[in-house]
Structures are given as structure tokens and as C-alpha cells.
């Protein structure tokens, strides 16, 4: 999937993946896509909840070798 920016949250625990995803989105334009990589399994549900509550769109969630990859489209 194409993306405009990548944020690697590997090794970070709650709430850093979410808080820093929010920061990473801050300087992006509406419609742009952020790729987030995380190792915290809690981030799977948290990222969806973040999208639901902020209006950003979680395009996909996948797992590859113990890493979770998210594509978040900015509102």
C-alpha cells in the first residue's frame, strides 16, 4: 500500500504508539496515509479505537513476523 509517511513504534508500550501516532499525523495533510509499525499487541485494538474516536480511517491492520502494520488515512 502507498503511504506518505512512516512511524516506527516498535518496542513502545501503551500509550506511546497511540500518542505518537497522533503526533505523526499532526503535520500531514488530510487524505494522506501514515504507516505505523508496532510490536505492542495492545495497539491492534487501540489503533482501531483511536481511528473510531478521531475520525481518521484505519485502512488496514496486518501482522508480519511479530510486528503489526497499520495504514491510517488522515481525516
Amino acid at each position, binding site marked *: 500500500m502507498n503511504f506518505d509517511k512512516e512511524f516506527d513504534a516498535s518496542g513502545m508500550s*501503551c500509550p506511546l504508539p497511540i500518542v505518537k501516532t497522533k503526533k505523526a499525523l499532526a503535520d500531514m495533510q488530510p487524505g494522506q496515509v501514515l504507516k505505523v509499525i508496532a510490536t505492542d499487541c495492545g495497539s491492534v485494538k487501540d489503533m482501531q479505537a*483511536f481511528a473510531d474516536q478521531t475520525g481518521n480511517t484505519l485502512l488496514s491492520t496486518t501482522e508480519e513476523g511479530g510486528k503489526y502494520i497499520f495504514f491510517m488515512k488522515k481525516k
Partner: protein
Amino acid sequence: MTTKKMAIIATKGTLDMAYPPFILASTAAALGYDVQIFFTFYGLQLLRKDLSDVKISPLANPAMPMPVPMPVMVQMLPGMESMATMMMKQKLAKHGVASLEELRDLCLEADVKFIACQMTVDLFEFDKSEFIDNVEYGGASMFFGFAGETDICLFV
């Protein structure tokens, strides 16, 4: 959509109890909440520029997971508190949990408002110059001005 609001009353000044207010506040701010934390009594210790005195004690803390069971008589020995604090900080770092300083900075960056209880500052004769700058001093009434309109209000 009107902005949601959350208020937290932080009353504890130990390492373990310092985390919930900062974690919840930074997360809520990331979700778009307008957040205020009212620091009162021992919670005021969390506003110090230097947080190295924020410690955890195994004493009177039977729920704290210990690497080896430790009788209370041992827990009360000099140095045990510092050791427990050091071990807890190592554990937090190993698991990628942010330091208190980092979480506090993230809160401030996200415009979480910190209010320090003026009464407690006077009571314990705290020196305001030892606290970080981004703090407003006020009382319960001032806090209720915001808390009364919140969607979530927590006492920690």
C-alpha cells in the same frame, strides 16, 4: 462534534501511582479530549522539575509483584525503597514503557492543563520554583469550573 473533556484528580506521589494520570491524560489528549489534571496532596510531587525522588515502595504494597517473596521485615531495611525503584524503572524501560518525564512532556505538548492545589503548596510549604513552569495554581472551585463540564472525571 463538541470536544469531549476529561478531568483527573492526581493525589498520589509514588512511581506506580504516577503513571495512570499521565497515561490517561496523554491518551485522551491524543483522542482529541480537552484534559486537565488537578494535582493535590502527594500528587504535587509529580510536578517537580526533578522527578528522581518519585519512588515505589514494596512496604504496605502487598500487590506489587516481587521477583522473590520478601518478608516485611526485610522490605523495611534501608535502601530497599531505592532498590525497588531502580528495579521497577528497569522493568518499565525494558518493556518500552515511557518514563514519567516523557509522559509528562507528551501531556504538555498536547496541551493538557496542569493545576496545582494552592492549599497543598501552602500546607507542605513547597517551593514553587521547584515545580515545572507550565502549572497553574488554584483551588477546588477553579477545578470544578472545568470538571463540572467533563465527560470523564477520575480520582487517582
